[in-house]
């Protein structure tokens, strides 16, 4: 007996029954294809929707919040910023170069579909340990894919973050964030209004690549033999996208577009139905007008194709000729494929026949919502009780070398030197620092961005872990002189049908939401990636925060890690605990211990520390967040990057390696008034010499530390 068609498309029997109910009949094959993709987890957020309402999404500067292609915030002076983050996890496992490349291409379309020019990219990457050749293949493939696409499409990659853990061996995470900039009057939406307006398909021809990407790749778990899913991975063409960006920006400039929508997951199905639904209209679509790469594609295939580099523009009939001429100038394809109609029906024709006629809004708005079971995993009690046994003392010199040799703590320039991070001449603080900082030409403003995640800490306590990455991201933008302004989030989780995974998800949302509330920063968009599960094993809960900060004005000479000089004093700002080792780099790398419960963040202290960092960024040459590896690694990074040694005053070694939150270090000339009376602060030592000198806890030469740090990634790649 053969499987019913809806099941092979990833749809449940109940969902199928719902389609029948909406249509009042059995769906045609093309209709079934459309519903299966649009109602997939990837497109419909059916398991996460009830929880995502918890996020604070409002602030006076929010122009568009979650649910749009990208969030949009107002930064003043008539400038708007569009931002978005999205995952491309499963495609990157199946084919790392193209998976990552098309992840970049997809997120950029989400930005320029809003009317903004994409001006920056960030990547949050997670892989299994580099000791495994297959992980090295995935890692270098993803980095090359990001470089190959991002560089050629002409958008700089300004930063990101990386983490390695066993759970990502067969499920790497590739989260890409993008930022766009536009004048206030350039904002466009996807609301297809105006009966008689024409739908124009711009960009690449439509082929069989990526069919079922959303429903099959992104909304299901992996088992042995996932390589056979390779035809579901799309192929990117950055040259086509570059032309498409320039063509669309000129269309907006000339006011030729009523509405526009990029074609991403679910291709033409998604773009046509979302445009029509957003405008409260219907649309008639003629599939015979779609430029195809190969003949004999079925209507369902044309509708579901995820061929890259395509946009659907809604234009007034009188403007069609001008739009087509402009497309011709930029050397991209453009064909009229549809008409906006009254009513609410999306009608699709193929070879003279109606192959689909469905209520447009039903595809996006009537998707099922699941209130999945939630249950706290019992094993957590044992995890929390299992605290690391710390030694009475240690040699910090050799310990530090082990930490600096870790690929997540070592020099990441092997990665970011492959990315053009200087294009557009706005990069004031580039990759390799805490947060990146770009200027906005013609203003005094700077835009800071940091992406942060911490799968290990989130696995130990999702709520605390998630809250802490929000505070860390806020501090990372603050050290450039910026105040936290808006958040986008990428929630990477395992199989939502497991109550323990949904508990992790619910806790994560709560932790992030509360932290955002306490900082007064709105969540303006996000992405949920479920089913990060291979062979029945789920990844650690891995929320990634993309934080936008606004520096207004931008510091004249913003802090960087390489600006410490001999004679400068080193200060720590923020409270110390000395006991927050759960999830720390020291425990993970040296003790190989991954248990315990991370300390709870303190929202009031967090906010004050963030404000101090943003203020001190205007006067201190170095302001650096303390995170993985604690003070010892933070100080070593400054010393290595600045090429100057440092001598720390004696103290408990545990204060140098624990990772209690809300702390940063500054390098300043002696006698500088830091003015930090309402939070703890302590003089740590002084810069000078050619060693990292921890007093009675040991010492290590700067050149040796530097060599180990620089080789952390290259030596593992052979």
């Amino acid at each position, binding site marked *: 007996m053969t499987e019913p068609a809806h099941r092979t498309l990833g749809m449940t029997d109940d969902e199928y029954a719902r389609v029948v109910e909406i249509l009042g009949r059995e769906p045609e094959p093309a209709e079934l294809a459309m519903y299966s993709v649009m109602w997939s987890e990837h497109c419909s957020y059916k398991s996460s929707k009830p929880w995502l309402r918890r996020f604070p999404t409002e602030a006076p500067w929010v122009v568009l919040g979650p649910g749009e292609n990208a969030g949009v915030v107002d930064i003043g002076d008539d400038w708007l910023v569009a931002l978005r983050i999205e995952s491309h996890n499963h495609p990157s496992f199946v084919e790392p170069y193209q998976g990552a490349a098309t992840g970049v291409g997809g997120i950029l379309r989400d930005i320029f579909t809003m009317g903004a020019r994409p001006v920056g990219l960030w990547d949050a990457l997670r892989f299994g340990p580099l000791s495994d050749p297959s992980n090295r293949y995935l890692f270098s493939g993803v980095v090359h894919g990001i470089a190959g696409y991002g560089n050629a499409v002409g958008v700089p990659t300004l930063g990101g973050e990386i983490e390695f853990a066993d759970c990502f061996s067969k499920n790497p995470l590739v989260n890409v964030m993008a930022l766009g900039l536009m004048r206030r009057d350039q904002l466009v939406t996807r609301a297809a209004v105006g009966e008689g307006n024409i739908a124009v398909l711009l960009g690449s021809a439509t082929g069989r690549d990526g069919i079922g990407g959303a429903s099959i790749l992104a909304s299901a778990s992996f088992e042995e033999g996932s390589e056979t899913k390779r035809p579901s991975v799309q192929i990117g063409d950055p040259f*086509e996208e570059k032309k498409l960006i320039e063509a669309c920006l000129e269309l907006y400039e000339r006011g030729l577009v009523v509405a526009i929508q990029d074609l991403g997951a679910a291709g033409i199905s998604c773009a046509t139905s979302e445009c029509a639904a957003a405008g409260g209209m219907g649309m008639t679509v003629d599939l015979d007008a779609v430029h195809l790469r190969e003949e004999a594609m079925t209507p369902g295939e044309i509708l579901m194709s995820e061929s890259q580099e395509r946009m659907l523009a809604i234009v007034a009939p009188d403007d069609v000729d001008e739009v087509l001429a402009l497309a011709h100038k930029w050397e991209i394809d453009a064909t009229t494929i549809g008409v906006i109609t009254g009513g609410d029906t999306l009608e699709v024709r193929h070879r003279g026949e109606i192959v689909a006629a469905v209520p447009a809004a039903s595809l996006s708005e009537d998707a099922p919502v699941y209130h999945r079971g939630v249950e706290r995993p019992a094993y957590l009690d044992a995890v929390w009780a299992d605290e690391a046994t710390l030694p009475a003392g240690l040699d910090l010199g050799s310990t530090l070398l082990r930490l600096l040799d870790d690929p997540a703590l070592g020099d990441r320039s092997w990665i970011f*030197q*492959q990315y053009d991070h200087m*294009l*557009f*001449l706005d990069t004031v603080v580039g990759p390799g620092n805490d947060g990146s900082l770009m200027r906005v*030409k013609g203003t005094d403003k700077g835009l800071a961005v940091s992406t942060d995640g911490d799968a290990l800490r989130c696995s130990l306590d999702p709520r605390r872990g998630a809250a802490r990455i929000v505070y860390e991201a806020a501090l990372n933008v603050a050290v450039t002189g910026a105040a936290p302004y808006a958040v986008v989030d990428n929630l990477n989780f395992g199989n939502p049908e497991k109550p323990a995974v949904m508990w992790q998800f619910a806790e994560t949302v709560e932790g992030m939401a509360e932290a955002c509330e306490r900082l007064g920063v709105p969540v303006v968009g996000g992405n949920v990636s479920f089913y990060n599960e291979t062979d029945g094993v789920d990844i650690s809960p891995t929320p990634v925060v993309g934080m936008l900060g606004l520096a207004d004005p931008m510091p004249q*000479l913003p802090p960087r890690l390489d600006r410490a000089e001999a004679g400068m004093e080193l200060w720590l700002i923020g409270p110390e605990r000395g006991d927050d080792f759960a999830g720390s780099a020291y425990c993970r790398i040296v003790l190989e211990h991954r248990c315990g419960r991370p300390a709870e963040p303190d929202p009031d202290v967090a906010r004050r520390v963030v404000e101090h960092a943003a203020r001190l960024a205007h006067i201190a040459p170095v302001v650096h967040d303390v995170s993985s590896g604690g003070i010892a690694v933070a100080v070593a990074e400054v010393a290595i990057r600045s090429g100057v040694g440092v001598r720390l005053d004696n103290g408990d070694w545990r204060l140098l390696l624990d990772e209690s939150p809300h702390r940063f270090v500054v390098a300043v000339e002696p006698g500088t008034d830091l003015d930090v009376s309402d939070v703890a602060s302590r003089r740590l030592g002084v810069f000078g010499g050619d060693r990292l000198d921890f007093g009675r806890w040991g010492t290590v030469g700067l050149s040796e530390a530097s060599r180990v740090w620089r080789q952390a990634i290259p030596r593992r790649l052979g």
Partner: protein
Amino acid sequence: MKIAVAVFPGSNCEHDVEHALGLLGADVELMWHQEDDLSEFSAVVLPGGFAHGDYLRTGAIARFSPIMDEVSRLAEGGFPILGICNGFQILCEADLLPGALVANRDLNFICSMVHVRVESTAGVLTRDAEVGQVLRIPLNSYEGNFVADAATLDELEASGRVLLRYCDPAGNVTDEANPNGSARNIAAIADPGGNVVGIMPHPERAAEDVLGSSDGRVLLASFVHAAEEASR
């Protein structure tokens, strides 16, 4: 005096060049690659990027764009022509400069600050600089590795047409300081007239201190001054 910046489909540094030359007071206009009349311009910049996606071979398709006939005509007339990165590759493909740019030695894209030493002032890129001067300028390329046969390299050196070489911060030209494997550490060259120049690093990215370096200004200023002279 007006300088044209040629824009091919896939170019991406045209606005950066426009901005940096604008800081020096130059009058700059972006010109689409289909243009076949540059008679009102006294100099042309071919900017960085990925003209025609770098498909087939870097610069191989761009050399056939209509604007390149005008670039050749202006080059023959002694007008200043500057190719930066992808523009350098296009000039080589168009036979306006000798040699070729191939994949970097390590087969990775390189975006990084590098040091170059001024070797000769016999080109419109370096006429205002001093021989021996060390400049810190960003490199940003995958095919940045300059190659040519030994006779061509000898000829370039003998005629003072090697304008810049990769070096260490102290100005020593060493293998370690060669980021991409370029023959004899060559980073920029000129044609026999000195008016057509190609440079692999990006001087326009080093024109403001806030971005980390303004060492590229002397190169851009040289070019602007040459353009001013040519317009008279």
